[in-house]
């Protein structure tokens, strides 16, 4: 079930009312309803996916007890079983065909023709997210930072809580499980914040991301026939499309969770205001980057065993992070580009320069240096997005080549009005609002005046309703990260 669908618009109020009015007597009832609702939400795509979800949940729950064993070899065995189980699911459903084709091509290079068996199975929605939930649970038990939960229901709610089930944020057992284990009580201000976040998330997805997508899709699809200027506009457009699509999803997830009394981890903190790539990764898809930091980078030694190890580990986490997004060389190269961008900061010990506060935290505007840093970081990220967006490595290279060649052939184009410029109608207001909100990503409150806030909300609602009506003609557009 998509957040931006008529089905969800009916589903959410029903579950909300049942939750607070009927199943509100005790914790068990609350969790039972959340579990059933989550399975309905997920099964809306295909009931067959539920079998995999339930099986994976049960196995991770059971492994948890083994991992908690005081016998370290036994604990390690169960930890590996948990990892193999989750990575095995990903390997079969997400990566098998990719590896099979790579082996085939490899063998053909040495003159051997093989016909590997390819699997014709649909990629279950959100598989990369819930398997990572499961792994974080067993890792945390192994590291001794938490005990296994006794109740399967509670564990199942942690894994499949519907707002975060299909595209995160990737929650940590230590953060979400205690909330699952405590009866939720109605909190008015939390609910209002939830509604605001949902509205802002819907606006970002349905109005901005889907609006920009019209021009961006055309530019990426027909890139050989576009001018360099259009291609640059297309790449910039995609940067904002994916940001609004994914952060919009995360806002809806955070907002929906608040309606049920849960607080999820933040996933975005205004990434395009980052002053360097290191800061970008502390602000973009935070739950994934911190997952890789805690469960991969640090266990590999992090940056404590010398620069060479730190460089190796940096490349590993960026490449793995790229590969996590999809079984394609494009994603791996995308991760590699970010690793290269990160490298100078790591070598010069500048990767932890902008750790705490957002740019111009105590000022209204950034200074020239900060503006330059934000612009160059954004352009670097935008360049990398080309590899992420376009199908096939040759097309990504072709896209970049077309920008260079066409710029040389027709430098005068930059003085003319390029097509697709109208995407700035979306981008400029977004940047202004983000800049205004940048000190706290979890509170969407534009002014201190109630009437003005209501008017802004009504304008947003106007555009959202308008786009919902478009779904009478065409199916709602899915979220980009649902593919992962």
């Amino acid at each position, binding site marked *: 079930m998509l957040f931006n669908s008529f089905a969800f618009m009916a589903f959410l109020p029903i579950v909300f009312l049942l939750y*607070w009015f009927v199943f509100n007597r005790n914790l068990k009832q609350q969790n039972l309803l959340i579990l059933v609702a989550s399975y309905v939400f997920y099964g809306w795509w295909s009931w067959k996916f539920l079998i995999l979800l339930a099986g994976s949940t049960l196995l991770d729950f059971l492994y948890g007890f083994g991992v908690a064993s005081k016998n370290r070899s036994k604990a390690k065995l169960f930890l590996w079983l948990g990892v193999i189980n989750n990575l095995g699911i990903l390997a079969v459903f997400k990566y098998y065909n990719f590896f099979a084709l790579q082996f085939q091509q490899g063998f053909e290079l040495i003159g051997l023709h093989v016909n590997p068996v390819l699997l014709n199975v649909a990629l279950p929605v959100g598989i990369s997210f819930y398997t990572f939930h499961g792994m974080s649970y067993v890792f945390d038990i192994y590291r001794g930072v938490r005990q296994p939960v006794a109740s399967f229901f509670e564990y199942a709610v942690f894994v499949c809580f519907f707002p975060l089930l299909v595209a995160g944020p990737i929650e940590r057992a230590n953060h979400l499980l205690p909330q699952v284990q405590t009866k939720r009580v*109605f909190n*008015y201000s939390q*609910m*209002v914040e939830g*509604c605001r976040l949902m509205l802002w998330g819907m606006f970002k997805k349905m109005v901005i991301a889907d*609006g*920009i*997508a*019209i*021009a961006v899709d*055309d*530019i990426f699809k027909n890139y050989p026939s576009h001018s360099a200027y259009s291609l640059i506009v297309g790449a910039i457009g995609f940067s904002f499309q994916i940001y609004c699509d994914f952060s919009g999803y995360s806002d809806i997830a955070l907002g929906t969770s608040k309606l049920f009394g849960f607080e999820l981890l933040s996933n975005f903190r205004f990434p395009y205001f980052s002053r360097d790539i290191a800061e970008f990764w502390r602000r973009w898809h935070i739950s994934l980057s911190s997952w890789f930091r805690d469960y991969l980078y640090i266990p590999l030694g992090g940056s404590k065993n010398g620069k060479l190890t730190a460089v190796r580990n940096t490349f590993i986490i960026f490449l793995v992070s790229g590969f996590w997004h999809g079984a394609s060389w494009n994603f791996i190269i995308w991760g590699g580009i970010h690793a290269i961008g990160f490298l100078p900061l790591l070598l010069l010990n500048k990767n932890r320069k902008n750790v705490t506060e957002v740019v111009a935290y105590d000022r209204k505007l950034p200074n020239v240096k900060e503006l330059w840093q934000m612009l160059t970081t954004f352009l670097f990220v935008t360049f990398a997005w080309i590899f992420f967006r376009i199908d096939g490595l040759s097309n990504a290279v072709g896209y970049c080549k077309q920008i260079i060649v066409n710029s040389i052939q027709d430098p005068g184009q930059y003085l003319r009005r390029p*097509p*697709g410029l*109208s*995407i700035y*109608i*979306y981008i400029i207001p977004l940047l202004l609002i983000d800049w205004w909100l940048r000190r706290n990503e979890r509170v969407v409150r534009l002014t201190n005046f109630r009437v003005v806030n*209501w008017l802004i*909300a*009504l304008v947003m*609602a*106007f555009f959202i*309703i*308008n*786009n919902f*009506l*478009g779904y*009478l*003609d065409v199916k709602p557009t899915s979220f980009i990260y649902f593919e992962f």
Partner: protein
Amino acid sequence: MSTLLKKIFFFFLVSFSAFFLLKFSLRNFQQKNYNSAFVDKLKILKANKLNRKIILFGGSSVGWGFSAELIEHKLGIKTINLGHSMGFGLTEIQPFLMQNLTSDDIIVFSPEWKFYTSPEYYDTATLENLYRYNYEYGKLIGNVKYEIKSYLSKIQLGIGQLENHNTAYIYNCLNKNGDVISQCNLTGPGPRYYGIDNTPLKLDVFPKYFPFLLTHKVIFAFPPTQERIYKEFGNRLNFIQKSVLDQHYLMVDSVKDNVYPQSVFFDAEYHITCDTRTHRTEKLISYLQKFIK
């Protein structure tokens, strides 16, 4: 809890009411596209309800394939080109067409090949686009359902779309007679291949779908056909021609007379270039001259 629910209810009430009020007041200001030009054609017909006229009727093979302007210029009779898109179908506007004809109007009827076997054919998406985003269409043809559906459609803000200056499929595509002229200074990508189905012809039930066949002077014309299509389906197309003759309908010329090399097609299945259209229309004019006499 009740405060929250009241506020949410109030918010939804105000936002939906405001939206639909605005939508209602903007219903005549929908963003127009190529399909909207068809509404303009119907308006030309309505404006000439009481005049004697020649109507060119069919799908886009007519809109792109005949020049009503040239016919009007040469014959001195008001001529309207009603052909626009095969996807709209031909049957839905029959009541509107009949209401706006005088008894001595002449109809040049040129259905695309598909209509000979499926006179009731239309393409759902194309027709939906027409009535959803053109409130006036439902109003003109008197279809309340379409008016409601149009009211429930999205307001097309048109931002984010690429400004494509190199397409014939724009709203301002017509001349005052309803001919599609937006392609005249453009180079098309060339025609698409298509097949001709072999299912039984339904010429015998044509009068049920096209009542003007029983009430008005009607001349059949065959659509411009690509050489390769004629080469492959010639027998079938000649059979259609024979069947039209068997029904004692008048014909401008034969199927073969409308066969052209691929090079004179602009795009789609039947869209010919402007020069070819002029030659083709001249043939129609000489036939009409005889017919009118």
